[in-house]
């Protein structure tokens, strides 16, 4: 038995099974007409309707839908008889006005309720200097924040919808003439191919369109700062904005970008480079220090300098566990603290933090369950892993520690070296939108190194990054920026 073709009437019937779908009858005295107005109540801004629509609707003289259309001062209104369109718009918060109860044609008028968060300070990527605007959940506002910063005509926005149930609007933004069309095409194509029912957040999109889904390393950068998106669009990247998500995705990206905070660009380049190097060092320290502890204490006591030997031995003397158990116990405790701290309500959170951090730590040392040296190392390593400006890579780093610890337990230093080889190989496999993930380290791009591990001054970065293969590589005339003068001239 075939289903009857959809009609507006059946659509309204289906919608009518929800109590929040209303169809009300009003009478326009002036025209002597009855009007059937259907809408989904939670989606409609009743105040706006009462202020801007109903006065015209109930008091103007008209005799047909077209005249109503002309009379209403609402821009986004049109006449439609397509049931799917009607359904879609009703669910978005449009009013459906008909002249008779059984009419198949009606006027759709936009009366959407917009309720959004006020613009706030970025929570994850807070910076001391520089603008403090952050994206919010509404796509329109986000586009506004972005277009404000790149007010040129070639800033292109392409909108699509993804998600069969959520019908989320996704906007792909790029600067035409700078961004490589291949990158854009890849993004657009992948988003088209997304098959999912409910897309809640941009991170869903990331996980679905990533090049290597099984890798713990993120391959698209996400940010909540409009200034960062504007800067990278100028470099030639592509941005993906998802309605309902304050995080905007940027691609193609490389590993070194995950360690650069946007604040680096607001500081002097020497200071910024220094901080970047500290960050890289702290990440390496964070990953390697606990495995080195395990490896050295298990197998390589000869590596420890004599002066330190006494301290280590006395600190470990009362501990009943072998180093690996000690390390795992402490690492898991720190992860526990972190997870618990993330879910506790703020009032309780601070107390638990102090209790957990100080009391448990000191108490376990006093009780002889862990050694104080290891406690310091693990705490420092945990702290160091939080220096990454991008939240996602911090998680990956905390995860990375565990394979190293396991290999250090089996083969000591050799295991650490072996695990390192595995990680490097894995990173070599990764691509971001088809571009190598480890660029500019490998394949080495000398031009791009100016903004990778250190950040050289703006005047020396007159070309756009090579990895993006932009259509217009020159940003500004580099030679003009420098002027040579002799002494006392």
């Amino acid at each position, binding site marked *: 038995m075939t289903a009857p073709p959809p009609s507006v009437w059946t659509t309204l019937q289906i919608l009518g099974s929800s109590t929040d779908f209303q169809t009300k009858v009003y009478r326009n005295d002036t025209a002597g007409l009855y009007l059937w107005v259907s809408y989904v109540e939670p989606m409609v801004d009743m105040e706006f309707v009462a202020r801007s629509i109903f006065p015209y609707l109930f008091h103007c003289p008209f005799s047909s839908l077209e005249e109503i259309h002309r009379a209403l001062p609402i821009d986004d209104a049109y006449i439609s008889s397509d049931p799917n369109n009607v359904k879609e718009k009703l669910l978005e918060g449009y009013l459906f006005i008909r002249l008779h109860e059984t009419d198949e044609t009606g006027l759709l008028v936009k009366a959407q309720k917009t309720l959004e968060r006020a613009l706030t300070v970025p929570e994850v990527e807070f910076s001391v200097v520089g603008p403090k605007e952050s994206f919010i959940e509404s796509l329109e506002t986000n586009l506004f924040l972005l277009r404000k910063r790149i007010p040129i005509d070639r800033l292109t926005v392409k909108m699509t919808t993804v998600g069969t149930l959520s019908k989320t609007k996704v906007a792909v933004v790029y600067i035409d003439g700078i961004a490589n069309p291949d990158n854009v095409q890849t993004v657009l194509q992948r988003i088209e191919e997304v098959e999912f029912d409910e897309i809640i957040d941009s991170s869903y999109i990331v996980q679905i369109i990533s090049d290597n889904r099984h890798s713990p390393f993120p391959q698209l950068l996400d940010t909540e700062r409009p200034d960062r998106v504007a800067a990278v669009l100028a470099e030639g990247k592509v941005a993906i904005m998802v309605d309902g998500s304050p995080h905007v995705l940027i691609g193609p990206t490389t590993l070194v970008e995950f360690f650069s905070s946007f604040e680096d660009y607001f500081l002097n380049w020497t200071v910024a480079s220094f901080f970047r190097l500290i960050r890289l060092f702290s990440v390496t320290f964070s990953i390697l220090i606990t495995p080195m502890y395990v490896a050295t204490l298990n197998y390589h006591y000869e*590596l*420890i300098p004599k002066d330190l030997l006494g301290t280590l031995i006395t600190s470990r003397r009362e501990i009943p566990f072998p180093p690996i158990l000690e390390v795992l116990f402490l690492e898991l405790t720190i992860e526990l603290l972190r997870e618990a701290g993330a879910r506790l309500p703020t009032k309780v959170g601070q107390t638990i933090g102090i209790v957990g951090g100080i009391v448990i730590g000191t108490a376990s040392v006093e009780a002889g369950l862990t050694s104080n040296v290891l406690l310091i190392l693990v705490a420092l390593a945990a702290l160091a892993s939080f220096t990454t400006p991008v939240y996602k890579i911090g998680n990956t780093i905390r995860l990375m520690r565990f394979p190293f610890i396991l290999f250090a337990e089996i*083969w000591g230093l*050799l295991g650490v070296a*072996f695990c390192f*080889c595995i990680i*490097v*190989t894995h990173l070599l496999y990764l691509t971001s939108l088809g571009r190598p993930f480890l660029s500019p380290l*490998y*394949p080495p791009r000398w031009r791009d190194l100016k903004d990778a591990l250190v950040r050289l001054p703006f005047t020396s970065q007159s070309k756009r990054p090579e990895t993006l293969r932009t259509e217009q590589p020159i940003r500004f005339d580099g030679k003009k920026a420098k002027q040579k003068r002799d002494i006392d001239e």
Partner: protein
Amino acid sequence: MASVAERLQVSPFMTFFIIMSMQIGIGVLGFQRIIAETAGHDAWISVLLAGASSHLILILIYWLLQQADGDFVLLHQRLFGRWVGGVLSLLLVLYFAIIPFVVLNTYIEVVQVWMFPDLKTWEFSLALFLLCLYITFGGFRIVVGICFFFLIIPSYLVFTFWFVLDYSDFYQLLPIFDHSPSAILKAAKQMTLTMLGYETVLFFYPFIKGGKQSAKWAHAAVLTTTLFYTLLTILTLAYFSENQLQRQIWPTLMMWKVVELPFIERFEYIGIANWLLIILPNICLGLWCSSRICKQLFSIRQKMALLVITTICFFCTLWIDDRAEIDFANTILNRAGFYFLYIWIPCLAGITYIVKKVRGNV
């Protein structure tokens, strides 16, 4: 002509890293003793000679590559017919297949003597070969990435030799040329195994963008390796007395014993762990080259060839595991390398030249 899609190719600059990381392998740990036995304190001259001759052979190699349009297997076929050419290429498959397990076995032996006497050969070998499969299955670009990183990252080890200077007597190198030229030449021949590595260019040439430009980088690599080895030899000769050197199987490792950093003593353990990074490209390139030749000869999938060759190498590491047998394998590799590079390549170049004159082209 073996042409390769452009997206799979690497820039010619990478040739430097590929060749240098292939050359620096397991030989560096102990070559000084062998050449000092023949040429005494003039052994560093042998190193320079070996390097100079390598440059000459490299020139011949590039000339051959130009003649053969980048396809060495095809060259064998064209010159000697399908069957004989095939056999010759098959010998090369064996040659490149021996390298992984000789390198790995020697390394495992070093680890077993210096670090973990009860490390089971099979498990470390299994783990390493699995890792190499992971690397080689990613294609040439990943192998080159490994060559690149694992040449740069361990390069800091060069600075550790600073500590050796305190205990070195450079007058031990005098007088220069105190040994007969034949001894010096013989020692140069013994250096072949340590200098081997640049012959791989015969097989990865199609993967280089703008093949001819890579010649200068290849020569730069051989030059840097030669200079590094010469420096190392000079340091070794000054650090040990001659008789003492003869009693060290791995002089380079002994030299690391004297390094003393403020937070680490006994640096040789770190050196050995880092050495894993240095030999990994050797093993991967060897596996890649031999499977690539197999692919061209037998038209089988390279992945299949890789699996087969790796399995055979793995079993070889299990069976050939005592000191004398490993030494023997090293000697065979040395001889094979010498005959391939210094005898076969010039002969081939000569034959190609004649054939070219006669036939017009190859």
